């Protein structure tokens, strides 16, 4: 947990009305979009708990759509995001769904990208505009998006983590947190590394050279 700074108290700059239901939702939408990594063609939001009950009152719906469109959480166009979605040809819909034992402000964002990839990202809005991503596709993960975040999808084999760490160390990128998540033995795994320094595309390419890594992505804080 980060120590409180002055901008946790005077801030964030955000679009109202609610830090948990609007700003957090915008952040979740944008994080999901960044994970998918390209334009989204169609998205279904599965809303859980308090999100399901109050989403239209707080503009949670508009904020989620805005995020998936790529708007930052303090973009004044958030309130017109439905219209923007129509202009850009993004299809969106909302469904209520019980997502189980999760934070009351949780949403599962199911996306289909322009190139036809499917992504499912689940995240919770924790209050104060802070969020936590709790799953990507079928894999449980955990990160906030406040740091530069490296995500690798790889085959769970010995040495992979050491390889990734070595590349990061070589470029003097300090890892604040690193965790590995996997579905079961011999299956897909995800590594999440939150770093203090930026991870450039060159570094990313070097990480991706490992044959057992299918995909590596960097999410930059916004």
């Amino acid at each position, binding site marked *: 947990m980060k*120590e*409180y*700074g*002055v*901008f*946790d*108290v*005077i*801030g*964030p*700059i*955000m*679009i*109202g*009305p*609610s*830090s948990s239901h*609007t*700003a957090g939702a915008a952040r979740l939408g944008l994080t999901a979009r960044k994970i998918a990594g390209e334009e989204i063609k169609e998205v279904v939001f599965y809303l859980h708990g*308090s999100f399901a*009950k*109050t989403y*239209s*009152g*707080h*503009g949670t719906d*508009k904020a989620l759509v805005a995020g998936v469109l790529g708007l930052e959480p*303090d973009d*004044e166009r*958030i*309130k017109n995001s439905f219209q923007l979605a129509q202009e850009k040809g993004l299809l969106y819909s909302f469904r209520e769904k019980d997502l189980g034992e999760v934070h009351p402000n949780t949403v599962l964002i199911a996306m289909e990208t322009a190139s036809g990839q499917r992504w499912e990202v689940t995240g919770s809005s924790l*209050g*104060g*505009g802070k969020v936590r991503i709790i799953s990507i596709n079928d894999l449980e993960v955990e990160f906030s998006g406040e740091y530069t975040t490296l995500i690798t999808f790889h085959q769970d084999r010995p040495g992979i983590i050491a390889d990734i760490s070595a590349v990061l160390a070589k470029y003097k990128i300090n890892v604040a947190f690193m965790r590995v998540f996997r579905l079961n033995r011999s299956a897909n795994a995800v590594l999440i590394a939150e770093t203090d320094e930026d991870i450039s595309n060159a570094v990313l390419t070097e990480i991706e050279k490992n044959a057992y890594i299918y995909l590596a992505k960097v999410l930059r804080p916004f």
Partner: protein
Amino acid sequence: MQIRNGEDLISLCREKKLPIHQLMLEYECFKSGKEPAAVYEEMRSHLLVMKKSVYQGLNEKLTLKGKIIGGEAKKLQRRSQNAKPVCGYTMSRAISFALSVTEVNAAMGRIVAAPTAGSCGVLPGVLFGLAETFELQEDRQVEGLFTAGAVGLVIAKNASLSGAAGGCQAEIGSASAMAAAAVVEIMNGSPEQALHAGAIAIKNLLGLVCDPVAGLVEVPCSKRNVVGTANALTAAEMALAGIESAIPFDEVVTAMYQVGCALPPTLRETSEGGLAVTPTGRRLKKEILG
């Protein structure tokens, strides 16, 4: 450098012979590793967002509407133009600014959570109300934000800033304390006086429950920003006159924490108690959320 509570804040200010706002700037640089100029500039950008939100709701050509509230700031402004305000000009301006910001927030406009979105009107209301009367330079307002930030930080560490955890005293009460301390430093009061103002402000809103109608950040939130603003100005006025809080700041914050814990969940942002469950509160909820 460690700021755990108000006492730390005061002793560091004494030791370094600095006002709270300067100490806070140093502290932020120390924590974040950023340069003072960059931190200052970031705070300034927050002030500029506040500035825009303060005037947006007073613009006769704009209509800001939430689900329930909207247009109230302009009513206040019109009255202050046509009649002598009963609460004086500074106060009248400050509260119309506070309302304006809450209306911007409700209408999905851009605001600065200070410390939360629900209480976003207090600090800008106070800072810009004061700025008009005293023709303050922007620098002084930015400094005020650092003072306010320091007080908010101490409250966050020892109590809470969220209505869900601590009731509305944690949001409007904290915002009011932050703003009161800011006013004291802007008016050249001492760090001790700033914390007395903060303590007085919290004491006067202690126990305030969080009971938003239909779960929306509108009723009673918007008008509570007005009371937070007025309370900040009166607390600062007292502190600047040399009036002290009989209960020290840190003890007041602890009391607020304990009161927050003692509040039933129905009065902590669940909209299951207080104004939210009045007949009109329920009716509004039904009309809005179906």
